[in-house]
């Protein structure tokens, strides 16, 4: 069974606040799901040359694209702002 500490460590990496109850349920669920993943160990080995998504990416010209037409709306969507800036809490 996945430990409480492990779940809490992962939750911290994921920036996710979990209640005690959620941590307990997550331990149970994660253990079952990871147990199911064990069947992959039987899968034949293959060599992959590139990540599955790399083929789809392509270079494009480094052109400036104006987004001023929706800039106000994008900033307007921020929960906390001052003038044309998005406000954040102190980092330290």
């Amino acid at each position, binding site marked *: 069974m996945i430990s409480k500490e492990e779940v809490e460590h992962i939750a911290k990496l994921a*920036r*996710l606040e979990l209640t005690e109850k959620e941590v307990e349920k997550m331990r149970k669920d994660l253990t079952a*799901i990871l147990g199911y993943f064990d069947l992959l160990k039987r*899968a034949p080995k293959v060599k992959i040359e590139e990540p*599955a998504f790399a083929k789809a990416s392509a270079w494009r010209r480094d052109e400036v694209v104006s987004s001023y037409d929706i800039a106000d709306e994008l900033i307007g*969507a*921020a929960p*906390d702002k001052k003038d044309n800036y*998005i406000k954040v809490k102190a980092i330290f």
Partner: protein
Amino acid sequence: MDLTELTIRRAHEGLKSKKFTSVELTKAYLEKIKKSDLNAFLSVTEDLALQQAEEADKKIASGEFGMLCGIPCAIKDAILVEGQKCTAASKILENYVASYDATVIKKLKESGAVILGKTNMDEFAMGGSGENSAFGATKNPHDKTKVAGGSSSGSAASVAADEACYSLGSDTGGSIRLPASFCGVVGLKPTYGAVSRYGLIAFGSSLDQIGPITKNIEDAKIVFDAISGKDKMDATSADYVYEKLNIELKDLKIGVPKEYFVKGIDRDVEKIIRSSIKKAEDAGAEIIDISLPSTEYALACYYIIAPCEASANLARYDGIKYGLSENGKDLLDVYLNSRGKGFGPEVKRRIILGTYALSSGYYDAYYKKALEVRELVKQDFVKAFKKVDLIFCPVSPTPAFKLGEKTDNPLAMYLVDVYTVAVNIAGVPGLSLPAGKTKEGLPVGLQIIGNHFEENKILSIGMFMEKA
């Protein structure tokens, strides 16, 4: 005549011959949505719909108008419509208003479409039943005690219940095909890259694809034709133009994968799918038993790759840029509290699962292994399509199940996707076509899988199977 029962073509003909106007058609749907208790819609965009319908009527009066002009549709609430709420059925986006149109919406608007509202779904498209919505489950129109299927639950239920003429859904691991199968409508998951993902709230970016849910195959063709094609805003979109194709069953080799008819499949489902295959054979198709040997690994592969991508994609919901923001003593606290409060249980589970599989010490055992298996699954299809033109199999091992039946057991819920995820992993197109009903009266979908960018082959044969 009940206007809401019409297909796109018949509604188009009605508009053309002035039997009714787009405003009348739109009002008929809005009326139906208001009376419904299916919870298929998260928001109804009545003002937008009526304004679009009036504009459409002007276009129609001028005589120059296309198939989708003036036809009312519903949009999954993961697709942005400018100026309208877009929640992805999550508390974290409960009050988020879209700043721009998704490319598919831009295209529909240019075609003169009427947007009735945004449909219910599993939160962030994570689920197979529709029950993971933060705003309540969608009910199945064929039996209100059953799930509608997910994640595009409202998109499928609304079309099945005549609350929209057609809808758009998105499919990451079966999210168009499953609800289409459970609700008895047509659902197409296009080839990865055939339709732009710009403006679709991201879940698993190497798997996500937008597609149509419709009353019949012809409508699916019309909508797919309208929304597909290259988009400079989506680097993974392909230079693809839908071309009509008319082939017949007698010219066709159909593969039936033995791995899709194993223990656990419902008797009625197997009977219905076998009888569909028999009909194709009787019409002259050559039926070939094939094997997709990596099928048993596909589900585990999917449930590693999709949560890994999701854990990265959902990092943007931080309580700073948009969406729900919870107070905290410092920046980290704002992140923790906003995300802790805003995300539902399944979304949290997938974020934790993805973060775990990508974290130091586990990457090789999970994510890298899953990428290897992805290659195996792809090779299965490459080999299969050297022998056959199309693959016929079930969409799901069971028909729609009871609301609440699987909500406590995430692994049991994941197994619902066992026949749909391989299609996304390989990036090939797949269709769900209503094939019959169980003794209980629940619809069962036949899944037709084709090779990359062969939607026209799938749809052409789908048309035959629809009549068979």
